[in-house]
């Protein structure tokens, strides 16, 4: 197979694996993980083949036409940026699948979990590999949906369901903004692919729509990447099983927003708006996340908030516009994926083995779990930015970008040092506190984790070490191509473990010193933060609840306003509209019929039939009760059928006879069933408007028919059917031949409608009055519950 077909297969493979995962897990139990992990591993191996080309500065594109008329394709773009992402997603994905095998061992829905996580993996790698806008958007939404499934995996718990819904609403809402942004981008440029967009950047920045595109894209990216003040869904998403947190909320999904910003940096970046908005939101997220992380005692929540600050740091670096900032973003992104994934998995191991992940309840695990301790330490060293780990390189590069002497750099450097020092303290709190000190009693007796659990974090922690030790190679193959792709021009990353005396190193030393100080006074800091947050009270998380309640209430109000449930209201509205359309069109276009021609020599029997029809109508209006009115309606219908018969339409006439008969029967039955009052009790003030509407409709139809029959009759169809009905379709009855042969497909559709309508009516008739009452009572209860919640 050629490389394009293989790439297509690699993009689809996780979805195929997701299909077989449940069956495989039923067969093999947790050991299915070993086989399922081969899928991401194979994807990893496939994309590894692009590394030599991409490191030479080449961009690999490929794909297939999808909707050529709209210039929409299923196409991918492999450059330094997307390749790094795909390798991280598939590489960590393989480890996560293994880890889930151990973590959810014996869980009744483990197969479903594998299925979800593989689907997520497929969506995520599709997202970063996409070249076309539409494909990016589809995969973007798929990651939102699959993460909804994963966060709500433990759907028996209220908190998990709420977190899942919250994540879906926030990231899905952001996805809609992104869609709008991409559509404007498409409209302005006429381009549907990122690979072609690069050459359009300067024109776009001049466009009056630039700010709209920027704000919409930022809306999508900031919600997905949990930027302040949209960060609240990320810590709540910790309700998910730990493999999900390790995968989605460290290395992949939350990075999608950052990825988008990096991808669009050459096109949208470099403008004052970009360099103000991104660093501002980024640094706010960085500091807020780090401060909130200190407040927590739950290992996963601490990690979640530091993830938020890391994302802020990445957004800030992407928008900073200083030399080395892009390089620093590239390095930090890789470093973060490695150490945060490892630390999340360590937190999961501790939780799994001891039954607790509360920092204050844990201690002295070093002898029971030496390997986990070593892994945690390795990851924390990288997170703290200490040599000889990859995080150190990233941190040096960050400070290199911030070491200019102007006010802006100094402010950002100071805030970054604050955030980094807090993260340093949190990292070591997680890596040291559970393992050192006296042994604490935990719900479970701690053991060293099985191989499926420790393998993933161990590989990630070692990777953080080996990438730093072989920094030259890592930069040439990964960091430099990635930085070049983000910058849109060739960049080369040079930083190595050998420290250079200078401003960056000094800032690093300050960070470490402050971090150690924070670590030592962590308990006091936590208390202080708790007091501040308690004083503040309101937060975006509570705001989300208020927003959702307001949304539901307004939806209820609107529905009640427009869906009264009263048939007479619907009928009135419908017929007013019919009258308006029928009467407004002739007035607007002056299309009135000529005065009708009144025949004088009408035969007596025809006149009699017409009089019967009119008499039927009058009888309906003066009928004392409903049953008489129904029968009078039938009289009028029979008279019309007679007219059809006299004017040479026997088929139509027969049908009309039957329909009239059945209508009378069915209407009479409906009347008895509904137990209506036998006669009509409308007051006059309601009868008069109804009369006006009826007259307007009648007049409108009259005008329409007169006008239509005034147009010369085109007989070509008649001739056609008369000529061919017998010779082609073997039938002399033209009407029937048209129904069953010439236009048979129409009839097929019509009888389908008849059948569906019959089913629907049957269902309505069968609805018991009691069931109706129950449903109404249920709706009432829901509304009341909301009211109660609000009062509480």
């Amino acid at each position, binding site marked *: 197979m050629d490389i394009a077909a293989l790439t297509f297969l690699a993009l689809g493979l996780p979805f195929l694996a997701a299909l077989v995962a449940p069956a495989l897990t039923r067969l093999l139990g947790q050991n299915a993980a070993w086989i399922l992990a081969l899928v991401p591993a194979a994807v990893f191996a496939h994309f590894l083949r692009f590394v030599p080309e991409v490191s030479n500065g080449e961009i690999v594109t490929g794909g297939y036409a999808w909707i050529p008329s709209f210039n929409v394709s299923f196409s991918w773009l492999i450059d330094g940026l997307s390749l790094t992402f795909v390798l991280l997603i598939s590489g960590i994905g393989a480890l996560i699948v293994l880890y889930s095998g151990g973590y959810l061992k014996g869980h009744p829905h483990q197969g479903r979990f594998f299925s979800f996580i593989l689907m997520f993996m497929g969506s995520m790698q599709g997202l970063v590999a996409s070249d076309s806008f539409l494909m990016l958007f589809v995969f973007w939404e798929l990651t939102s949906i699959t993460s909804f499934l994963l966060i709500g995996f433990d759907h028996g718990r209220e908190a998990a369901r709420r977190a899942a819904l919250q994540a879906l609403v926030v990231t899905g809402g952001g996805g809609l903004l992104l869609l709008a942004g991409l559509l404007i981008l498409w409209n302005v440029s006429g381009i549907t692919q990122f690979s072609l967009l690069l050459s359009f950047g300067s024109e776009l920045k001049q466009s009056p729509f630039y700010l709209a595109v920027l704000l919409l894209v930022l809306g999508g990216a900031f919600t997905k990447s949990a930027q302040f003040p949209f960060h609240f869904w990320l810590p709540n998403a910790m309700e998910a099983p730990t493999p999900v947190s390790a995968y989605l909320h460290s290395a992949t999904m939350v990075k999608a927003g950052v990825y988008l910003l990096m991808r669009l940096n050459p096109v949208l970046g470099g403008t004052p708006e970009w360099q103000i908005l991104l660093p501002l939101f980024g640094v706010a997220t960085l500091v807020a996340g780090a401060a909130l992380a200190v407040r927590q005692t739950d290992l996963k929540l601490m990690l979640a908030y530091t993830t938020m600050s890391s994302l802020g740091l990445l957004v800030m670096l992407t928008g900073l516009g200083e030399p080395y900032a892009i390089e620093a973003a590239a390095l930090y992104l890789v470093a973060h994926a490695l150490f945060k994934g490892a630390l999340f998995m360590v937190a999961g191991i501790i939780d799994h083995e001891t039954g607790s992940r509360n920092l204050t309840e844990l201690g002295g695990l070093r002898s029971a779990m030496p390997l986990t301790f070593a892994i945690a330490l390795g990851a924390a060293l990288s997170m703290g930015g200490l040599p000889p780990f990859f995080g150190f390189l990233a941190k040096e590069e960050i400070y290199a970008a911030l070491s200019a002497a102007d006010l802006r750099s100094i402010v950002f450097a100071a805030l970054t040092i604050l955030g980094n020092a807090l993260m340093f303290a949190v990292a070591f709190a997680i890596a040291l506190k559970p393992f050192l000190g006296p042994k604490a009693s935990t719900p479970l007796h701690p053991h060293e984790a099985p191989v499926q659990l420790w393998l993933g974090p161990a590989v990630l922690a070692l990777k953080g070490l080996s990438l730093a030790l072989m920094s030259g190679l890592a930069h040439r193959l990964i960091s430099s191509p990635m930085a070049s792709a983000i910058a849109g021009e060739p960049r080369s990353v040079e930083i190595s473990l050998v420290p250079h005396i200078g401003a960056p190193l000094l800032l690093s030393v300050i960070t470490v010193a402050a971090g150690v100080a924070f670590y030592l006074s962590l308990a006091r800091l936590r208390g202080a933060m708790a007091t501040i947050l308690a004083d503040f009270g309101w937060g975006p998380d509570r705001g989300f609840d208020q927003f959702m309640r307001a949304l539901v209430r307004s939806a209820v109000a609107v529905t009640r306003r427009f869906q009264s449930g009263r048939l007479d209201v619907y009928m009135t509205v419908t017929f007013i509209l019919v009258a308006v359309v029928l009467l407004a069109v002739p007035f607007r276009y002056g299309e009135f019929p000529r005065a009708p021609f009144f025949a004088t020599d009408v035969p007596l029997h025809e006149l009699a039939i017409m009089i019967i029809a009119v008499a039927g109508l009058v009888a309906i209006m003066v009928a004392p009760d409903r049953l008489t009115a129904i029968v009078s309606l039938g009289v009028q219908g029979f008279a019309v059928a007679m007219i059809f018969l006299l004017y040479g339409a026997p*088929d139509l006439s027969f049908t009309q006879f039957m329909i009239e008969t059945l209508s009378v029967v069915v209407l009479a039955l409906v009347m008895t069933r509904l137990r209506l009052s036998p006669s009509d009790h409308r007051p006059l003030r309601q009868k008069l408007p109804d009369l006006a509407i009826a007259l307007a409709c009648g007049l409108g139809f009259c005008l329409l028919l007169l006008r239509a029959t005034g147009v010369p009759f085109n007989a070509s169809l008649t001739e056609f059917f008369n000529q061919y009905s017998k010779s082609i379709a073997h039938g002399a009855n033209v*009407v029937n031949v048209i129904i069953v042969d010439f236009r048979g497909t129409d009839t097929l559709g019509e009888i389908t409608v008849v059948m569906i309508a019959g089913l629907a009516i049957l269902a309505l008739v069968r609805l018991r009055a009691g069931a109706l009452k129950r449903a109404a009572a249920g709706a009432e209860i829901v509304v009341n519950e909301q009211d109660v919640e609000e009062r509480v």
Partner: protein
Amino acid sequence: MKSVIFRTVAPFLSSLMMLFSIFVLLRGHNEPGGGFIGGLIAVSALAIYGIAHGVETVRRAILFHPMAIAGAGLLAATVAGLISLAAGVPFMTGLWIYPSVLGVEIPLSTVMLFDTGVYLVVVGAISSVALSLEERGGE
């Protein structure tokens, strides 16, 4: 319904109408008639029988649930279209055969199968509504 005359006449009237409905269905290709009209006549027959002898009697008489009859009709109509596809001509093309039974040539066609499908859908869907209304209305 209490009228003895009506109760006595209704079975004969219904049978005659049913027979007539099939006659109308079959003659439809060349004379006024067809599946739709035939179906409506059959529904009227069932409705009359139901008013005279109760819905349960009708349900026993037609053996199947009316919606099952409608479903069979829709299936027949679709199959009539698909047969053409299987014969290598476009969907819904009319195909004719002329087998000879006892020396009489009988033209048969997919079109006729289709029209029978229409007949069954109309009979099933409308009589199911009418019968369920009669049933409830009598309570």
